[in-house]
């Protein structure tokens, strides 16, 4: 009888676990879609920060750094550690309004690659103003009127010099009446494309998916607090490099280091995938990135956790990213855990949902089971 009860309880527990995992997966997808819909570029992270604050349990005290970063403390077994992801993505901003109402465009930070601006040509965009989103399009020359010379300069040589956003007004006064101001964020509309093989594509999707993973973990149930508190942070202005000599750490990360002084940091980031030549593979699981050849205790802990939980991971040795740099100097320890993203830093970043779930499960395991330090 006792055996039968135990067996039944076991089955119920198993079913509950499967159901919880399924519910968790659904929640992570919903969360990703919710964050995907919110624009966030360097210096214009406030809407995404507000969205994340709204999704976090009211029981968590939210800390901020004055730059726009959002952070919460979680109890768990990981011990004192900072888990940090970026809040801002690459994008553009309004740099001026012409007398006939067109908007000129600039970037708050250097682009991730040379073709980044060229993707704007002939595309719909959203200008996020204090009065709400304003829809526009980036002008392109009419094909029927295009000469070879103009094609060379306006299409092949497209740059921000010839990027004008048309918001269908006739004067700068009308543009201002819509709420448009200098420095307003310019982003692509959040149109999600669902591909075969459980993959999603969209602009800045990698960033939003990673942010959603941390929200999902922070909003989830916590185990005991034997190991102390872990700080989970979504850092603003990470695409902006802190000034100074030598390597250029991300400003938001450097500020987080100063404010919270962690001895150990786990950077949750994105990494270009699917490019062959030993690059991470989409669908191959989260990517563990470390600058040093010899495995750190953090790396060893993650590999062990992944093996125990049967979570696929990939390992790469690469120089510390600007996000990881502030935490790289001894005696601090840093590990980057990244989501592989195909077509990274294009208007269609592709994320494999299995990688996303594996990233969530791996980080959750780390925060609940500890790093075995």
């Amino acid at each position: 009888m006792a055996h039968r009860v135990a067996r039944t309880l076991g089955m119920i527990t198993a079913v509950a676990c499967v159901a919880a995992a399924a519910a968790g997966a659904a929640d992570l997808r919903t969360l990703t879609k919710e964050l995907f819909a919110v624009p966030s570029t360097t210096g214009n992270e406030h809407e995404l920060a507000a969205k994340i604050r709204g999704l976090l349990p009211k029981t968590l005290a939210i800390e901020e750094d004055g730059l726009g970063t959002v952070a919460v403390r979680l109890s768990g077994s990981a011990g004192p550690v900072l888990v940090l992801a970026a809040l801002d993505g690459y994008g553009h901003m309004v740099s001026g309004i012409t007398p006939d109402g067109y908007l000129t465009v600039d970037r708050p930070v250097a682009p991730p690659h040379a073709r980044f601006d060229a993707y704007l040509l002939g595309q719909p965009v959203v200008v996020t103003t204090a009065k709400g989103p304003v829809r526009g399009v980036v002008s392109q020359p009419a094909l029927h009127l295009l000469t070879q010379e103009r094609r060379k300069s306006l299409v092949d040589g497209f740059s921000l010099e010839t990027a004008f956003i048309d918001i269908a007004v006739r004067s700068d006064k009308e543009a201002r009446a819509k709420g448009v101001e200098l420095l307003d964020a310019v982003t692509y509309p959040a149109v999600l494309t669902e591909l075969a093989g459980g993959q999603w594509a969209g602009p800045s999707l990698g960033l939003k998916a990673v942010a959603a993973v941390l929200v999902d973990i922070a909003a989830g149930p916590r185990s005991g607090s034997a190991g102390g508190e872990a700080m989970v942070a979504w850092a603003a202005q990470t695409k902006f490099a802190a000034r100074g000599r030598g390597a250029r750490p991300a400003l938001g990360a450097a500020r987080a280091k100063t404010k919270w002084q962690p001895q150990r940091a786990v950077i949750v980031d994105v990494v270009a995938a699917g490019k062959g030549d030993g690059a991470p593979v989409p669908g191959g699981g989260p990517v563990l990135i470390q600058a040093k050849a010899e495995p750190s205790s953090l790396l060893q802990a993650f590999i062990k956790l992944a093996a125990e939980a049967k979570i696929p991971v990939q390992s790469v040795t690469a120089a510390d990213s600007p996000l990881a740099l502030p935490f790289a100097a001894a005696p601090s320890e840093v590990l980057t855990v990244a989501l592989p993203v195909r077509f990274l830093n294009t208007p269609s970043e592709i994320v494999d949902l299995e990688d996303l779930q594996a990233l969530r499960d791996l980080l959750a395991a780390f925060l609940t089971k500890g790093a075995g330090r």
Partner: protein
Amino acid sequence: MNKRIAIFVMALVVSISSAGAQSKAWEILREIVLVPGVSGHEGPAADYVQKMLPAGLKTERDAMHNVWFTVGSGKPHILFVAHVDELGWTVDRITPEGRLKVKPGGGILPQTVEARPVLVHTKRGPVAGIVAPRPGYDERRPNAEEPEPPFTAESFDVYLGVGTEAEARALGVAEGDSLTAKKTITDFAPGLMATRAVDDRAGCAALLDAALRLKPDAVKGKTVTFAWDVQEETGLFGAAELAKILKPDYVFAIDTFVSTDSPLESKRLAFLPVGKGAVLRAVDSSNVTPKTEIRKVLALAEKRKIPVQVGNSRGGNDGSVFLTGGAVDIPLSWPGSYAHSLIEKIDRRDLEALTDLILAIVAEWK
């Protein structure tokens, strides 16, 4: 009290009767613009047109998917024609890695679809894909002085989320399937939008709206044909087929006027602003409209207080195919900024003025 009721009833009757005559062109456009119809694959767009036409009309459809109806009898014979086909691509082959190589289907800047979503229209329904960015898009070029290899429809491929040819075929994708850009509508303001395929779905919507508001019995002393033709973008092939059986005296091709209402264009020609009314194309790349006919149209528009602009631009029109048969070609349009793009811009007022102009011509053209 009775007087008040009578006034209320009268107001209601006026309101209902005028509502019946109200233009639905804008609403039709917002629907039809999303229906796929790459040149040579216009079946769904032709289906939409036929479905929308009043049941009492005797419509015809040929093997190419040209759709038309004729009302009235006698001379002159007036033909209105808009094309249902749109720019896009067709699947040329599937690579062993499950990516699609495509053939172009009309002029669209390939750069504007780089790293953008597309839909493959398979027999089993649409399948989403992404036009892969050019190889090494995010890498520093070893020799920046050398010209970059061109990014063309022939050189790009489409990623579907699969890794093998078999997986791509399992999605239903096959050679010959058409592809369109994934369309989104940018609403600048109520009645002002930009999207793909306004060229020439706006013409189709104007003709459909006119057909819905047309009273066939009122067409006296003339023959009027409304046609929605195919394969304009790839060479006016649908119009050429129609020209074998239709011998109009006047043809009004309803298609985009390539406007220079844009910050990137010289205003020396084609500067007809969006929002200032329908357009009569005086000269384009395929036709010179006789001045006598321009004056007739303008007089008619003035009489009915329909805003109409006249301009010259580039691009051809389906009406030109009927010139050799003896027809007079009078192309009508709306001012379209950013022609042949993902962001073709249109103003509701221009579209409704165009519909009103079509109906005025049906009623009064001699």
